[in-house]
């Protein structure tokens, strides 16, 4: 378990953050560049001493200026996956993973055997002899992860774990990372500026803006009730969990079926959709949107010059059920947030309990393997 109360000044940055991460929990710190995300990780790792506050892992005090405690990085029970992985360029993948074990005094042959097993766990046993330059972005990330986990840390820190990857390999690597993160039982703290990474990988979000926490909570909570324009824009996404059928349909937890643009293998998925892409109608719309379903307005939330409307799919009796392609059979409880203007709220007379229709184009749905 990690408890970090970090206060420090570094150049223009004035950082004051409190973060708690339980064992088995994944917490994502999201925020714009320069918000102090990476500095927070460096402080936990001991690469940046704090001015005030304290950093505790399990019951061990690592940094406390008031008490005069500052445990050096090498003696902290932490593992850090750097943004660009920082695999040692002159060592093979195997020796990169074994480095920490050897540095902590393990015999070379034993370290190599352990490293080989770790590489096997991340599916890279046949790349053991490869130099980092010969690895792809995703492979190099898995080596970096195996290297960080080799020394069996109590806290795993990940700095922008997917930023170094190109858009094409990102979804797959994200899914792999999620799987590998799940095998680690300690506390996991990752920082990212990518809302999808945060929503897919983390259990809880901490939003950091200009060195201060502006919001924190479960991913669902923060995504649904963003408290600042930045959060709304950044993580104010609808993230719907469901399973793909193997074709172009995804069945959500409540039973609502969505049509997506491209075929998806039959796996557990998350579907992200921007609230701006969800339209609200008073009557059943006719148009190109492939996803149209009846819903009830559950909640209205004014957010500066926009209104966020939570729409709960309602299994109301419908006269033409199944007779028209694209008309969804909604499941009870699947909720999606639409962002509309105050004028639209007035025009459509949107009040809690109002019966409306929601629609989303298939191309506005982004599907992520979970």
């Amino acid at each position, binding site marked *: 378990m990690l408890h970090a109360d970090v206060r420090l000044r570094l150049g223009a940055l004035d950082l004051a953050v409190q973060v708690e991460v339980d064992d088995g929990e994944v917490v994502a710190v999201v925020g714009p560049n320069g918000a102090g995300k990476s500095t927070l990780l460096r402080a936990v790792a001991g690469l940046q001493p704090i001015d005030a506050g304290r950093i505790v892992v399990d019951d061990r005090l690592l940094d406390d200026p008031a008490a005069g405690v500052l445990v050096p990085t090498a003696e902290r029970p932490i593992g850090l996956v*750097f943004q660009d992985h*920082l695999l040692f360029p002159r060592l093979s993948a195997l020796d990169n993973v074994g480095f920490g074990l050897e*540095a902590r005094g393990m015999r070379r042959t034993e370290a190599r055997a352990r490293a080989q097993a770790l590489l096997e766990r991340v599916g890279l046993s046949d790349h053991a002899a490869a130099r980092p330059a010969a690895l792809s972005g995703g492979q190099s990330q898995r080596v970096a992860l195996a290297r960080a986990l080799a020394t069996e840390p109590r806290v795993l820190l990940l700095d922008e774990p997917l930023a170094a990857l190109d858009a094409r390999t990102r979804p797959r690597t994200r899914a792999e990372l999620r799987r590998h993160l799940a095998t680690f039982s300690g506390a996991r703290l990752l920082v990212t500026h990518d809302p999808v990474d945060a929503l897919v990988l983390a259990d809880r979000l901490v939003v950091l803006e200009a060195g201060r926490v502006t919001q924190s909570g479960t991913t669902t909570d923060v995504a649904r009730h963003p408290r600042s324009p930045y959060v709304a824009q950044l993580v104010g996404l609808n993230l719907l969990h469901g399973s793909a059928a193997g074709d172009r349909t995804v069945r959500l937890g409540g039973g609502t079926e969505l049509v997506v643009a491209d075929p998806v293998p039959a796996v557990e998925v998350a579907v992200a959709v921007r609230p701006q892409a969800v339209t609200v109608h008073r009557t059943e719309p006719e148009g190109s949107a492939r996803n149209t379903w009846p819903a009830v307005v559950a909640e209205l939330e004014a957010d500066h010059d926009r209104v966020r409307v939570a729409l709960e799919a309602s299994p109301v009796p419908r006269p033409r059920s199944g007779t028209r392609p694209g008309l969804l059979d909604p499941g009870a409880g699947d909720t999606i947030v639409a962002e509309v203007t105050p004028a639209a709220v007035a025009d459509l007379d949107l009040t809690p309990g109002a019966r409306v229709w929601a629609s989303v184009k298939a191309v506005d749905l982004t599907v992520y393997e979970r």
Partner: protein
Amino acid sequence: MVRPRRRGRARPPWALVPLAGLALAFLVIPFAALLQRVPWSTLADHLSQPVVTEALRLSLVSAFAATALSLIGGVPLAWMLARTDFPGRSLVRALVILPMVLPPVVGGASLLFAFGRRGLLGGPVYDATGFLLPFSIWGVIAANTFVAMPFLVVTVEAGLRSADRRYEDAAATLGAGRWTTFRRITLPMAAPSIVAGAVLCWARALGEFGATVTFAGNLQGRTQTMPLAVFLALESDREAAIALSLVLVAVSLAVLVPLRDRWLAS
């Protein structure tokens, strides 16, 4: 007219070409002139003279010894300059560079005042043990090291400064202490600059004249290195001087050419 562009080779602005050519000619023509004077028929006789073989052996031994000593002390010194922050660091760096700037004769004289028979340190050592640094091969090595080590320190410091220190951070997060990090991460990353610095250092030591002749003298077979032998021979036996010079040029090229692209141009 559209010409296919060749990648990787920039075409220089035309004004640079004649200037570059002049500079190159200025550097090469003296060696051409030297070659043209080489007494090819009697070269073998000249080169087998003891004065030549002894000077060559002494030059090589002292240049390599000076390089080894410079590596042992110079790499840690470069690390201190690049990585630590202590009061007066810029003064220390200026002192390290001083031997590069000063006339070597001044260096040699300073060495005498420090390590000579009545020198600051040399005096007490001589009184206690009878050991005398000047006018021996040790004196030659000391003079070479004094003049050549700064080249290594400056090169390695630049290499360490340009290395990505976050690799050292990564090593620390994996539990590596400072010595392990230095040995397994910092040194391999600085290797190109260390090799480049060692080559520069060796080349400077091989050509050392002023400090050597001042501090170690010009005793054939004991302290007379190639440059000293050439200087002496120019007065008495010009053909021998040319033969000696030819050997120096050949030895230097043999070391520099294979290394040039790989290490020195990076």
